[in-house]
């Protein structure tokens, strides 16, 4: 297990070092805005905020409310594309 976590850390470091993580994040954000995911989540946020009251909302509340929904709402096409790119990156650097 220690080897597994070690490997993860190495891969993460590699992602960050190569700048691939930033690129992927940017890609994901653009795609999500494009497909309306952001607007949907914002609407959900509004509901949450109204429910809790404008003054009493915390970031933690929002994260716990929004994250599951956000994960579920990501379109399949976006998810596939992202996974494909991660795989390609790993394959490229595994063969080195």
């Amino acid at each position, binding site marked *: 297990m220690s080897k597994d976590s070690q490997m993860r850390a190495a891969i993460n470091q590699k992602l960050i070092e190569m700048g691939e*993580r930033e690129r992927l*994040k940017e890609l994901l954000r653009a795609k*999500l805005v494009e497909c309306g995911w952001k607007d949907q989540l914002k609407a959900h946020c509004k509901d949450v905020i109204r429910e809790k009251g404008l003054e009493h909302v915390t970031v933690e509340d929002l994260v716990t409310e929004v994250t599951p929904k956000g994960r579920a709402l990501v379109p399949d096409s976006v*998810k596939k594309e992202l996974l494909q790119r991660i795989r390609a990156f790993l394959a490229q650097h595994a063969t080195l």
Partner: protein
Amino acid sequence: MKMEDMPLSGPDNTKLEALVHDIYSELVEDACLGLCFEVHRAVKQGYFFLDETDQESMKEFEIVDQPGVDIFGQVYNQWKNKECECPNCKRLIAASRFAPHLEKCLGMGRNSSRIANRRLASNNNMSKSESDQEDNDDLNDNDWSYGAEKKAKKRKSDKNQNSPRRSKSLKHKNGELGSSVSSEPYKYNFNTGISYETLGPDEVRSLLTTQCGVISEHTKKMCTRSQRCPQHTDEQRRAVRVFLLGPSAPALPDADAVVENDGFDIPDGQTLMSRLQWEDSPDISPTDSASSKASTNHADSRRPKKKKRPSLGLNSAGGGGGGGGVGGGSSSLTGGSSSSQSNISLSTKKKRPKLSAPSISSIYDELN
């Protein structure tokens, strides 16, 4: 590194897939977290709910999508046929034309004070003395030509031909001129000139004294530059003046009325004319009265600036109050000049005693 990576690409595909999914969910959570921060910040800064209002106003300002109305549900051409009443002339003017009309009607614009002045002048024509009227005309004409010089050709033609106000006022003026027969031949003569057919003879004359005036072959408009404009030669300018003013000179002796009107000239113009007459033919004999007349005309053509204008100005006044005044004046003057034998014979020869009398009397005055 290779050592670590090799097992990944090996047979353990499920491990690799799990890793890929982990990275993916990490990214999605990142995005969610970013959104949460964004929303939270917006809430705390107070601009999160700015873009939405209550339902009522949402309904009220809903975008209308129907044929014939704009997005606010208003009929978009409702102002199209609106008319405004001019406070000055009480006419109904289309709203889009109201400002230009007002400018002309009130006479406060750049170009229009002249027109307004002209209208005022023509309205007060009857009450004004002849010289006043003439001064006014002079002023207006100078105004006009000055403005025209500064303006482009297009503007000028626009003013001359297309402006209804202008042609109207001009017509009005001609109508008052109409009593004098001499204006008619002028008009016909100038009808040959195309773009300036709307101009009165006075205007053509003053124009030619201040401007180049050469008629373009293409546009048929007159050149509005100064008399020394380099585009045209002196030859051309002379030709135009002969063309425009030349025909009017022979027209003068033909029409008796013109000569008659010459007799009605204002005093100083008359003295000038008679002086010329005197100079041209020092001893006026009864026999060459016709020739003296011709010489007068000759003098006219030689000094178009000074001479033509008064003779025309009197035409306009001839129909007005000129007749009585001159009649009275002539009777008193004939009394003064009755001692001269030649004068009497001249006047009888001419068969227009009233008319010739003042001129002769002034000649007589000159002698004294």
